[in-house]
């Protein structure tokens, strides 16, 4: 069964986000020979049109409106409903991002649609769209399907392997009407100092109680900087006040799947493992050779993180300079 699949793209700092390419890749699969239609919010967009075409979009709606520069649920919901009304898609896909997870349930509720959120894979089987998603923060998984013809999924970043499918998209400027926006964003404070977001970071250097203080995170940040990564933390470190809760990884906190996860002074409580054990490669550094974190680590170093981490930073610096 071929489908028309609508993808809501997302940009950050003028560039399409990685999860948008993953959404397009998933859309090509779900389309089963049908059409992939992309939506771009914003103005300056010739590059982005080319990019979404490279990953399979054959039609691109370009939507420009003052109320869409900054996300609010009311404005985005109205714009999305108008585009969905125009395209009448069989399936809708977007990233499970700060925006996607916030607006998709509203749009689904308004349209009376089922929604499968936070999918790590999307496929089709015997004419049905199936979402695969972690539950209990990844301790288990579930497969879900839709009742009714239309499907709507949000996708977790860093899980779907990109596949190009070059198209030359038709560009369609599209006007939307937005009124009665009830919540307004007065100010945005950018907090992620290095600019690398935890949920999309390729490399995460994470600290637990073993880091001992806020100051103790400094060597971890230095290692993360050398690797172009982000710093995370366990609940233990957050509860102890060593760092902000925004950095917490685990069943409460963020679930991450970077290419490389370096756990420093983290013992590996079940609730933390749930948040990181699906990282591609896990390195554990801990004084206690019996720490459960070593059970999920690909490489372990038994030792004091304050000795190991700076040496690791130096060794990576040398290795990366040689490249």
């Amino acid at each position: 069964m071929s489908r028309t699949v609508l993808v809501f793209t997302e940009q950050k700092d003028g560039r399409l986000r990685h999860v948008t390419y993953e959404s397009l890749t998933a859309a090509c699969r779900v389309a089963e020979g049908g059409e992939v239609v992309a939506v771009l919010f914003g103005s300056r967009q010739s590059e982005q049109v080319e990019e979404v075409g490279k990953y399979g979009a054959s039609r691109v709606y370009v939507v420009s409106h003052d109320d869409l520069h900054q996300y609010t649920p009311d404005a985005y919901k109205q714009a999305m409903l108008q585009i969905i009304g125009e395209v009448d898609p069989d399936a809708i896909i977007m990233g499970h991002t700060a925006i996607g997870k916030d607006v998709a349930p509203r749009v689904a509720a308004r349209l009376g649609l089922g929604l499968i959120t936070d999918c790590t894979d999307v496929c089709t089987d015997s004419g049905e769209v199936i979402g695969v998603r972690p539950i209990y923060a990844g301790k288990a998984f579930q497969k879900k399907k839709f009742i009714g013809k239309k499907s709507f999924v949000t996708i977790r970043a860093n899980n779907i392997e990109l596949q190009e499918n070059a198209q030359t998209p038709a560009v369609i400027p599209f006007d939307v009407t937005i009124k009665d926006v009830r919540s307004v964003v007065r100010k945005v404070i950018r907090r992620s100092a290095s600019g690398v977001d935890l949920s999309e970071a390729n490399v995460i250097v994470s600290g637990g109680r073993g880091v001992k203080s806020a100051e103790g995170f400094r060597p971890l940040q230095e290692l993360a900087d050398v690797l172009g990564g982000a710093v995370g933390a366990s609940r233990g470190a957050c509860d102890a006040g060593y760092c902000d809760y925004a950095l917490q990884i685990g069943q409460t906190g963020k679930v991450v799947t970077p290419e490389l996860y370096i756990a420093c002074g983290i013992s590996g409580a079940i609730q933390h493992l749930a948040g990181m054990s699906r990282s591609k490669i896990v390195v554990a550094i801990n004084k206690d050779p019996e720490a459960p974190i070593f059970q999920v680590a690909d490489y372990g170093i038994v030792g004091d993180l304050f000795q190991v981490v700076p040496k690791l930073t130096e060794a990576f610096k040398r290795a990366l300079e040689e490249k």
Partner: protein
Amino acid sequence: MKIWVCIKQTFDTEEKIVIENGKVDEKDAEFIINPYDEYAIEEALQLRDELGGEVTVITVGPDRAENALRTALAMGADKAALIQDPSLVGDECVLARMLAEAIRREGFDLILGGNFAVDSGSGQVAIRLAEELDIPHIGSVTGLNVNGRQAIAKRDAEGDTEAVESTLPVLITAQQGLNEPRYPSLPGIMRAKRKPLERLSAQDLGLSDSLKTKTLIIEEYLPPEKEAGKILEGDLDQQVQELVEALCGKGLSFN
């Protein structure tokens, strides 16, 4: 001020998951209030103490969910409602409609819930509820002030913080960092036993045929177990060197 808190009873986060016949097995599991919902309860109690009014906690669930409601009452909530009906087995769409009906009948100024539940992790019910009630919502909130007819919230947007203003009524989903939830006190636990807890069925809410689930779970399963890796040996410099070479050899993309 009529404040509602939507909660869910979930597995304790330290529980291991056991699968039986393609479904997560609940037998022998310890249950808690979803940790994100505890922030919502705490915030509701603080706002009530500041502004006056009452806090009602509500959930949809089986008999055991009464324990979660009693815990919330012991923390200081005034009333509780348990929606329970064997005919109502549904997804987020169904849950949101039931909650909407129960809350609409009683009236509301402010609704709080957790950012998501640590079991299903879908993060839909509260936001769908806002749409069902046609009120605005602010998701993933780490700071909240309510004055008169306006809410001012700090919203966590992937590390950035947005300062958001909204008219009331509004629905708020609580993110970690919003507050430090209190523990129920002993007198609180005693008082909770006598606080009103209403049980509602689909019929009570005037709902039945109109409620159709839109998604179905095909199966639940455990991910492949990860094999424990290699503990590096030798002196520290050797270990570090071996690790860096191994990682660089994996073709990882740094920066």
